[in-house]
């Protein structure tokens, strides 16, 4: 056994018995220290003849690299053991609860208005607004509902003045008048907003939300109205097909007027909008009455178009399975948490309207 082989076997025996960092340091010194066994071997190199030196040097370097890497390996192992030992004492119970936080939510009405705006944005509608307090003229008269018109009885109106000239708008339709008076045709707007009627029971709230739509241009027909509503209903309820029917009705500000029903069925006690064999009224619509256009300074001989109105709260109820309209406005923390939407759930066209 050569010297080098001897050194190697001594080293192997020692490294196996290393338990601590100190042991390892001792080995390091014993072999690679100033007078270490390997160091000493290097010192003999000078005294060898050139032929032997080369061969010996090569062997020695190999053995040095081998031993060094073994020491590194051992050092790594020892450190791992040490870390693991330390981590053992750092264990926490991960099932403990997170820090208390308050989860904010967006109200279903706001969410649905965002959805609606996104849908109508795709086909070029802009959002318009008007004041909550309206003149009797804008709310009724300009909309072809003169003072002695019985249709006024259908609206239980909140008044701000004895002479009934100022009121809380009973529908979003007066915004039609404002928008048309403030601009030039064509008009393509939707108007989501608060509306008010003074009745209050299980299915009526004194305030609710309406969505008005108005499209006035040169050749807009009832075919466009049908296409627009069919598109909207499909997009809103996120279904491929929808059964829709127009029922004759009467609104003073449209002629012809219709109410629109959509098909639905009940599955597992839940309303499924789309095809089913039951009908649900969802909106009113029609072709804008020439008198309304005249009142809004639009020439009915040149321009025509459609208008529609629907209950936003009702749409929200249908889509998200909410039963009680009154609860929308009662600010019950539990209800708001349950039906509210995560603020990051912004309805978009590319990610879809709802999760």
């Amino acid at each position, binding site marked *: 056994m050569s010297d080098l082989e001897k050194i190697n076997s001594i080293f192997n025996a020692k490294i196996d018995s290393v338990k601590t960092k100190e042991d390892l340091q001792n080995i390091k010194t014993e072999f690679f220290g100033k007078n270490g066994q390997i160091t000493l071997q290097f010192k003999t190199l000078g005294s060898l003849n050139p032929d032997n030196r080369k061969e010996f040097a090569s062997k020695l370097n190999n053995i040095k690299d081998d031993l060094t890497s073994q020491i590194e390996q051992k050092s790594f192992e020892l450190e791992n053991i040490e870390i693991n030992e330390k981590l053992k004492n750092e264990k926490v119970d991960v099932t403990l609860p997170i820090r208390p936080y308050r989860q904010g939510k967006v109200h279903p009405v706001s969410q649905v208005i965002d959805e609606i705006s996104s849908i109508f944005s795709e086909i070029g509608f802009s959002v318009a607004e008007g004041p909550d307090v309206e003149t009797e003229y804008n709310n009724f008269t300009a909309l072809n509902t003169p003072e002695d018109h019985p249709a006024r009885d259908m609206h239980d109106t909140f008044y701000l003045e004895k002479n009934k000239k100022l009121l809380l708008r009973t529908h979003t339709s007066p915004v039609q008048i404002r928008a048309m008076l403030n601009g030039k045709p064509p008009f393509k707007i939707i108007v989501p907003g608060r509306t008010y009627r003074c009745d209050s029971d299980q299915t009526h709230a004194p305030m609710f939300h309406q969505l008005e739509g108005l499209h006035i241009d040169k050749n807009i027909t009832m075919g466009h109205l049908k296409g627009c509503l069919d598109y909207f209903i499909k997009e809103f309820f996120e279904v491929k097909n929808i059964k829709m029917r127009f029922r004759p009705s009467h609104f003073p500000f449209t002629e012809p007027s219709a109410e629109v029903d959509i098909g639905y069925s009940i599955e597992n006690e839940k309303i499924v909008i789309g095809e089913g064999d039951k009908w649900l009224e969802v909106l009113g619509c029609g072709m804008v009455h020439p008198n309304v256009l005249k009142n809004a300074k639009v020439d009915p001989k040149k321009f025509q178009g459609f208008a529609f109105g629907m209950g936003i709260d009702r749409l929200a109820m249908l889509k998200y399975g909410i039963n009680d309209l009154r609860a929308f406005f009662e600010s019950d*923390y539990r209800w708001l948490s349950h039906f509210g939407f995560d603020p990051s759930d912004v309805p978009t066209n590319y990610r879809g309207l709802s999760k």
Partner: protein
Amino acid sequence: MGAPNARDGLVTIYAPPGATIPKTKFQLKVAKIRGVESRGMLCSESELNLSDESEGIIELENKEKEIGKSYFKSKSEKAIDIAITPNRADCLGIRGIARDLSSTGIGKLIPLKKKKINQSIKHLIKISISKETNQGCLAFGSCYIKNITNKESPDWLKNKLLALGLKPISAVVDITNYVMFDLNRPLHAYDADKIDKEIIVRNSKEGEEFEALDNKKYKLKKGMCVIADKSSVLGLGGIVGGTKTSTEITTKNVLLESAYFLPRSIRKTARELTLNTDAKYRFERGIDPNSVIEGLEIATELILRICGGQASKFIVAGKNSQKGKTINFEIKNFENLIGIAISVNEAQKILTSLGFKCKKGKKNLKVEVPSWRPDINEVVDLIEELIRIKGFKNIKLIEPERKRKNETLNFRQKLFHLSQRLLASKGYLETVTWSFTDSKIDKQFSKGEKDIAILNPISSDLDVLRRSILSNLAIYLKKNQDRGYEDLSLFEIGPVFFGKNPGEQQIVIGALKSGKVGRKSWIDKERNIDIFDIKSDAMKTLIEFGIQEQNLYVSENSKQCYHPGRSGSITFKSEKGPLLAYFGEIHPAIIKKLDLKEPNVYGLEIFINNIPEPNKKIRQTKKSFQASDYQKSERDFAFIIDKSFKVGLLEKLIKEVDENIIQKVVTFDIFEGESIPRDKKSVAINVTLQAADRTLSEKDLDQISKKIIEVVQNKTGAIIRS
């Protein structure tokens, strides 16, 4: 439950288990009520939809023989409720509905059979319509019928009325009601013997009184259309008759009225007296003005048939009939509006089936509107008739174009939608409350301006339009606290009003936050929500709107609904700039008044309308990106400064010492106490220094530190703490 008139021997109506109560649509079951097994119930008139009478159960007098028989002999369950839109007065009679049905192909409209009436006697009552402005009566037709035997109506008539939900009274009254519902032709029958000499249709005088058939006395205003005799008012024309001349079972001689009243006049009178009757409902919507004679014919024949007697000739005071309207209808207009074509022939067929008279041209129809259709005035009205009968389902839908020419939302609308997400992402639940509120609460939050009162509120605690967004939030915060929740964050975005005129409103974000942070946390110490929580929410929201932080000017100016020492406002750029927000602790006096269980409540208001609209997008105004690769250094300073001196101002002063090098200024400690004079505080500030072009040397740092100390000491009178 429990009728005051229930007694032994009473004959009444019994609904067995399984029966459905007409009013409530509730199906009776065998159930225990107050511990006693109940098998069915005894009914009031109201419960059976016979009348509004709900005091006690029905008393059937002299009906002992019918005990055990069914009360409803008619097949009233076959009644169909139809909601009639206000334009279709003609469909307030069965005949109008039948005409519409036949037009759509359901059944055939059979012409009314004229029955011969023997009109042998003389009309004994003089009738006149006084000529005056605003005379509401155009025609007053009548028939005098004598020697009748008024009685209970025959079953066929009674059952029809019951099915309509009417209470049979006597043959004469029942006949007038029957004709009204059958033909939409309201009639009135007077006991002719109670009329003082003659009938005068005239305008009422101020203060005239009369007792109507509802047994109420009405005091009339000037100018209401009344039917009167020589001595007094007998009835309100077209609305309600009076007790003075009402028919009774003993009535012998009858004056039957069939008149035409102007809708406007009817509506005005009824509204002023808040009266609603079946006749009024029809007249105000417009009945057929040419049905005066027809109504008399049908009703007189029925009275003679059922009650006997002899009838006079019909006399009509005023105009007997009115000329119809004619509309020239270019057929092409249909396609222009509806999107599909109709032929002249088809249009003619439909219109004719609805009672229109048409003269056919090549491409047009000359259409005469039937007298029972006051709602048809112009071409679009005809188009509607055509499409509703032809069927909306035949309209081909045109797919909408996916094209956007204008932006969907404007600047402020974008802020509105964004703010909902911003507040919710800060842990607030969005709520939507009424735009009106309780004036008593709203007063606490507004500046004591005049109430914007609603004249007819649904309840006395929702009586004003809100001047503050916080009023309802506070009310609902309390309701939630009363449910046992203390740590609440609520917000609303909506209109707040500053006047009663249209447009005197602005959109405000309001938020309330109550309770603690880290309540019952195993890991953190719990603490009260404080003003810096709410300030942070306000500031962050404004920054997220796109306003740069250095443009948010914070001052202690606030309003009286907040704690005077723990509230402030944020204005744009300077103290006098547009008001962006208020924030602070809600005034303890308000908390006390509201009696909140968790009194630690903070609020904020953000005024979206005041946020200046930048004329450029952020991307256009953003500075180019520069980041220094040289080492940064930090220096700490502690100043002893007047207690009232605003730290915000101190930070600003330091920043301005050298904006190129001073990157960040952070206040990390405020200390007041023993080691410091009573009117002073110690403010510890950390300053981050970094140059763009070099590593700052010790010398540079010393120099700038010296400058900072100098500026602060000179401008604020502060002293650096060793």
